[in-house]
C-alpha cells in the first residue's frame, strides 16, 4: 500500500465507520462495540504504518490560493501523535464496550467516538489551515455530542454546550489566523506562517495561541473542563488524555517556528501555561470529586506542554503530552470503573477503593505516582524536560505547579489506598459544600453500582499504566537523543540529573506529607478553589443574553416602530392629500362640470338646443372623469406606490420619446 493511501485510510476508516454507525441508529447497537474495537485497532495498525511511511495526502478543497487544499502529512511530531491518539482511542473504545450499559444507544456512542478520533487524527496531521480548522471544529462538535451523550438527563446537554462554545470561542482565532495567513503570505499553508510579513505574523501567532488556549482549557478558558466531566467515563478518558485538550498543546508545538519568530506571543504562551499549571494545580488539590480532580489536573499538566511550546522545548513538550496521555487515560478508566462499580466518583465514597478492587487499584496507584512526578517514572522526566528552556520567575511558577501535582496525586492515593468507608460516613451528608451535594445526587442516580470491575477494564487499565511507566525510558540519554532527533528539535538541553533530582525529591516529600496527613487539604476544599477558583464565572452567558435582549428590544421598539411610524405618517400624509384633493381639485372639476352645464344650458337657451346633446355629453364625460380621478384615491398606501411606479414609468417613456 502506498504511503498516502495509508494516511488517507487512517482518517477515513474511523470517520466512515463512525458515520455509518450514526446512520444505522439503534439497529447498529449490537454490532457497534465489536465494530468500533476492530476499527480502532486497525486504525492503530495504520497509524504505526503511517508513522513509518511518512506519506502525504492532498485533496482539492478551497481554490484561488495555495494551501486551500485538504492536505495531510506525517512528520516526526505527527508520527508520535497519531500513534498516541490511535492507541489511547483503542484502549478507550475497549473500555467503553465493557463500561457502557448494554441498553444504551451504543451505535450513537461509538459513532461519535470514532468520528471524534478521526477528527483528532486529522488535526495532528494537517498541514494547511483549512484542514486544521475542519478537523479542529469537527472535534469540538463531536465533543459536544459526546459530553451530552445522555441528553435525557438534566444538565448533560448544557455541559456539552459550555464545552463547545468555550472551545469555539478560541476557534475564532483559527479563522483570524487563516485571514492573517492569506494577508501575510498569500497562502494557507501552516508552515508558511512563520515567514508572514510584519504585523500579520503577530496577528496569526496570537490568534493561534488563543485557539490553543481554548482547546487546551488553559487560563482563562479552563472551566469548560469541569463541565465536560458530565460526559460518560470513556469520553472523559479520551477527551482529557490524548485528544481535545491535547490538541491545543499540539498545535503550539507544531507552530514552534512561528512562536519563535514572534517572541511576545511565545512569552505569553509560556506564562499562560505556567500559570495554568499553578492555578489548576491548586484547583485539583482542592477537589473532593475524583473526576473533577483529574479534570483540573489535566489542565495543569497540559499547561506544562504549553509552557514547553512557549520556551521552544518541543521534544520535552511532546514527551509530556504523550506521557500525560497514558497516565491520564489510565486514571480516567479506573475512575470510570469505580463509578460503575461503586456508583460514586466522590472521594468520600471511594475510600479504600484501590484495596477493594486490587487490579485497577494497582494500575491507578502506579499512574497516580507517575502523575505526582515521582522518580523514576515518566512524568518526572518529561515535566522537567518541558520546562527546561524556562528561567527566573517563570521557572519558579512552573516548579510550584509541578510540585502541586504531587499534592493532588497524594490526595487521590490517600483516599483510595486508605481504609474502607465507615458505615456512618457513607451516604449523602458528609460535607456541606454545594458541589458535593450535587455529586451525591449523581451517586443516587447510579445507586450502589454493579460492585464489580470487568476483566476487560482491568486489562485496559494495566496496559495503559504499563505504557505510562514504560515511557520513563525517555529519561535515558540515548532514547532522549533519538526522540529529540525525531522531532527535529535540536539545541534544547535534556535536563541532567541534578536538575531532575530537586523536583523529584520535592515530589517525594510532598507526597509523603500529604499521605501521612491528608487532612491538611481540608481547608482547601472549603474555599473558592473547590469551585474552580471562580473561573466558571468567566463563561457565564448572562451578559451576552442581557445584551441580546436589550438589542431585541431596540429592534422591536425603535427600529420596527420607527418604520411603522414612518408608514403611518405616510398614510396620514396621503389622507391629508386626499382631503385636499377632494376639497380642491375634485370640487374644481365638479365646478367646471357644473359651470359647463350651466353654460350649456345658457347656450341651449340661446341656440335653441342645437348642440345640446353634444354639450351634455361633454359635461357628463367631465363628471365621469371627476369620478375616475377620485377612484385611485383609495387611501391605501401600497396602491399609491403602484400608481407612483406606473407614473414614473410613463414619465420615463415620455422622457425617452421626446429626447
Amino acid at each position, binding site marked *: 500500500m502506498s504511503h498516502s493511501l495509508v494516511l488517507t485510510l487512517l482518517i477515513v476508516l474511523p470517520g466512515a465507520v463512525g458515520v455509518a454507525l450514526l446512520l444505522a441508529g439503534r439497529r447498529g447497537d449490537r454490532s457497534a462495540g465489536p465494530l468500533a474495537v476492530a476499527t480502532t485497532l486497525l486504525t492503530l495498525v495504520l497509524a504505526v504504518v503511517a508513522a513509518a511511511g511518512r506519506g502525504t495526502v492532498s485533496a482539492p478543497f478551497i481554490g484561488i490560493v495555495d494551501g486551500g487544499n485538504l492536505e495531510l502529512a506525517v512528520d516526526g511530531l505527527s508520527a508520535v501523535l497519531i500513534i498516541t491518539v490511535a492507541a489511547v482511542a483503542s484502549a478507550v473504545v475497549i473500555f467503553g464496550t465493557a463500561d457502557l450499559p448494554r441498553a444504551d444507544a451504543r451505535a450513537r456512542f461509538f459513532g461519535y467516538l470514532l468520528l471524534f478520533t478521526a477528527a483528532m487524527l486529522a488535526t495532528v496531521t494537517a498541514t494547511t489551515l483549512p484542514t486544521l480548522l475542519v478537523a479542529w471544529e469537527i472535534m469540538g462538535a463531536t465533543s459536544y455530542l459526546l459530553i451530552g451523550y445522555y441528553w435525557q438527563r438534566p444538565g448533560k446537554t448544557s455541559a456539552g454546550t459550555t464545552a463547545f462554545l468555550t472551545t469555539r470561542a478560541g476557534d475564532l482565532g483559527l479563522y483570524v489566523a487563516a485571514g492573517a495567513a*492569506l494577508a501575510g503570505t498569500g497562502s494557507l499553508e501552516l508552515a508558511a506562517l512563520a515567514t508572514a510579513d510584519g504585523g500579520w505574523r503577530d496577528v496569526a501567532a496570537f490568534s493561534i495561541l488563543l485557539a490553543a488556549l481554548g482547546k487546551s482549557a488553559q487560563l482563562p478558558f479552563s472551566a469548560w473542563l469541569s463541565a465536560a466531566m458530565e460526559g460518560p467515563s470513556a469520553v472523559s478518558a479520551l477527551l482529557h488524555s490524548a485528544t481535545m485538550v491535547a490538541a491545543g498543546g499540539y498545535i503550539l508545538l507544531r507552530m514552534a517556528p512561528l512562536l519563535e519568530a514572534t517572541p511576545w506571543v511565545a512569552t505569553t504562551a509560556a506564562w499562560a501555561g505556567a500559570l495554568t499549571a499553578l492555578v489548576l494545580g491548586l484547583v485539583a488539590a482542592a477537589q473532593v470529586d475524583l473526576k473533577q480532580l483529574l479534570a483540573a489536573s489535566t489542565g495543569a499538566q497540559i499547561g506544562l506542554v504549553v509552557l514547553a511550546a512557549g520556551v521552544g522545548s518541543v521534544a520535552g513538550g511532546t514527551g509530556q503530552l504523550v506521557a500525560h496521555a497514558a497516565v491520564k487515560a489510565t486514571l480516567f478508566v479506573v475512575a470510570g470503573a469505580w463509578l460503575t462499580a461503586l456508583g460514586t466518583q466522590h472521594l468520600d465514597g471511594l475510600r479504600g477503593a484501590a484495596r477493594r478492587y486490587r487490579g485497577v487499584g494497582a494500575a491507578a496507584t502506579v499512574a497516580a505516582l507517575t502523575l505526582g512526578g515521582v522518580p523514576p517514572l515518566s512524568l518526572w522526566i518529561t515535566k522537567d524536560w518541558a520546562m527546561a528552556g524556562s528561567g527566573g520567575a517563570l521557572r519558579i511558577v512552573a516548579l510550584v505547579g509541578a510540585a502541586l501535582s504531587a499534592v493532588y496525586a497524594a490526595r487521590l492515593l490517600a483516599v483510595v489506598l486508605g481504609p474502607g468507608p465507615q458505615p456512618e460516613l457513607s451516604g449523602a451528608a458528609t460535607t456541606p459544600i454545594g458541589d458535593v451535594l450535587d455529586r451525591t445526587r449523581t451517586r443516587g442516580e447510579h445507586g450502589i453500582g454493579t460492585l464489580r470491575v470487568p476483566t476487560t477494564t482491568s486489562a485496559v487499565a494495566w496496559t495503559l499504566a504499563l505504557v505510562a511507566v514504560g515511557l520513563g525510558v525517555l529519561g535515558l540519554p540515548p532514547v532522549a537523543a533519538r526522540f529529540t532527533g525525531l522531532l527535529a528539535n535540536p539545541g534544547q538541553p535534556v535536563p541532567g540529573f541534578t536538575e531532575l533530582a530537586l523536583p523529584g525529591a520535592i515530589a517525594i516529600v510532598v507526597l509523603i506529607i500529604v499521605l501521612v496527613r491528608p487532612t491538611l487539604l481540608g481547608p482547601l476544599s472549603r474555599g473558592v478553589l473547590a469551585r474552580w477558583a471562580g473561573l466558571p464565572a468567566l463563561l457565564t452567558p448572562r451578559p451576552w443574553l442581557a445584551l441580546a435582549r436589550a438589542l431585541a428590544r431596540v429592534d422591536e421598539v425603535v427600529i420596527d416602530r420607527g418604520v411603522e411610524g414612518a408608514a403611518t405618517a405616510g398614510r396620514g400624509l396621503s389622507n391629508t392629500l386626499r382631503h385636499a384633493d377632494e376639497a380642491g381639485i375634485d370640487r374644481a372639476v365638479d365646478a367646471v362640470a357644473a359651470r359647463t352645464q350651466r353654460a350649456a344650458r345658457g347656450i341651449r337657451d340661446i341656440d335653441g338646443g342645437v348642440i345640446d346633446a353634444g354639450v351634455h355629453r361633454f359635461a357628463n364625460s367631465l363628471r365621469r372623469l371627476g369620478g375616475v380621478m377620485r377612484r385611485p384615491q383609495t387611501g391605501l398606501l401600497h396602491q399609491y406606490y403602484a400608481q407612483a411606479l406606473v407614473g414614473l414609468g410613463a414619465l420615463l417613456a415620455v422622457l425617452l420619446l421626446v429626447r
Partner: protein
Amino acid sequence: MLLTTIVLLPVLAAGALLGLRRLPDRWVGRIWVLVTTVDLALVAWMWAGFDSDASGGGFVEGLQYEAKVRWIPTVDASYHVGVDGISMPLIALTTVLFLAAAIWSLREQKRPRRYAALFLFLQTASLGTFAAQDLILFFVFFDLSIVGMYFIIAGWGHGNNRRSALKFFLYTFLGSLALLLGFIGLFLGGEERTFDMVRLAANPPLEDSPLMGGLVLLAIGIGLAVKTPLFPFHTWLPDAHTDAPAAGSAILAGVLLKLGTYGFVRIAMPMLPSAWQQWAMVAVVVGVISVLWGALVALAQTDFKRMIAYTSINHMGYVLLGLGAAGLVGTADADVRVVATVGATVQMVSHGLLTAALFLLSGVLWARGGTYGFARWGGLARPAPLFAAALGVAAFGSLGLPGFSSFIAEFQIIAGALQAAPVAAILAAPGILITAALFLVAIQRLLTGPTVLTAAAGYGPEAGEEFAATGSPPDSTPATQAHAATHAERVRDPGAGAGTGVQEPTSPTNGGSGQLTGTRAGGGHFQDLSAREIVAIVPLLALSVLIGLFPRPLLDVIEPAASAIVQLVSR
C-alpha cells in the same frame, strides 16, 4: 432557448393548472411536483453543459445560454437572459428549493390549485431575476416576486398574516422603487443609453461623476438592502416569516433574500465599480452590523421561527462583508478579495439550503401544535428521533460547522475579508460563536429535557388523516376539545384573532394550561417526520453536506465568475 424554457415552464404550468378547472384537486400537487422536477432536470442538464472554463467568467463576456429578443427598442430594453458562474448556482438553488416546497405542500388542502399556481408563478419570477441580463427585465421579475410572495403570506399564512404580508409588500415594494430610481440613473448616466446589463457592465456609467455615481449606488443599495435584508431595513423579515406558511418561508428565505444579495453582485458592483470602491467600507460596516445584530437579536428570541428569521440577517450580513471587502481594492490583494467573493456567493447557496430546511422543520412544529414557542416544546428527541436528528444536522450546518456548505462560505468570507478590513473581519468572527450559542440553546430547549408537548387535536392537514387511521383522536380532554374549537374558529376566519388563541393557550378563555402535556415517558403524541417531510427536508441537508465535503464542483463554477467580478470592480 433552454434557459427561457427553464424560466417560463413554471408559469406556463401555473396557467394550465388554473385553466384546467376539471382537474381534481388531488392531482394538482402531483403535477406541481412533476413540473418542478422537470425544471430541476433541465437545470441539471444546463449545469452539465455549462463550460466553467469559458473565457471571461461572465458578467461582460462568457455568458452562456444567452438569448436576446428586442422588447422596447426606444430605450434599448430587451428580453435578454444568460447565465454565468454566479447566476448558475442560484438558479440551481431556486429549482431545488421550489421542488422541496412542492413536495412539502403535497397535502395542502386550502385552495391547493391557486396555491400551486402562485408558487409556480413565483418560481418563474425568481428564475427570471437570476437569468435577466436587462435591468427592466430584472426589475419586472424582481417586483413580480414580491407580488407573488404577498399573496402566499396573505392567503395561506397564519397568525397576523394579513398585516405581515402588507408590511412585507409595502416595505419591499418601496425598496424596489428606490431600485428603479437607481436603474433610471444608470440608464441616464450611461453614454449608450441602454438597460442592457452586459453593456452597462462593460462600459460602466457615471465613472467620471463620483457624486451621481454615489447617489445612484445609494438608491440601488437601499433597494437591495431592504430585500436582502440588511440592518436597519430588516424589520419586515421576522414578521413575514413568523406568519408565512412553512413552504413560503423556505422560499422567502431561501430564494427571495438572494435576489437582494445577487443584485449587489450583478448590478451594483460591475456597473458602478468606482462608486463601489469608494463606498465599499459602508458595505463592510453594514455587513458587520447585520452579522452581529442578527445573531444577538436571534439569541434573545423565544420563538423558534422568529429566531431562524433573525439568523438570516446574520448570514446575509456575511455576504455583504465579503462583497464589501472585494471592493477595498487599495488595501488587499486581488486573490484574497476573490476568496471573499467566492465565500459570499457560496454563502447565498448555503444559506438557501440550510435555512429552507430549518423553516420546513419549524413547519413540522406548527403542523403538530400550532406554535413555535420554545416554552411550548421540550424533549422532542424522545417521541421524534428523526425530527431531532434533522434539526440537529440543520442547526450544526447553520452554525457553520466544517463539513457543511456554510463553513466553506464563512471561512472564505472571514479569511478573505481580514486583509481588506481587519477590524471588521475580527468583529464579524464572533457572529459564528453567537449563532452556535443560539442554535445549541434551541436544540437544548426543543429536543432535550423533559418532554413537553403542545397538544393540538386536529391540527395540521396530516393530523386529521392520522386520527382517521387510528379511529379516534389521541386525547379527548376538555382542554384539547376547547383548543380544537378554537382551531375550528380559526379555519372559518383565518387571520382574525388567531394569535391570541394559540399563543396564549394558558389564558382562562382557553381551558387553562391543559394543553401542555408534561410527560417523561413520551406519553404525548408528536408524530415523527412523515415520508413527505423527509423527502422535502433531507435532500437539502444532504446537498449542504455534499458541498461542505466536496466543494469543488460548485467552486469550479463560481471561482471564474468571482475573479471576473473582482477584476471589474478594480477598474
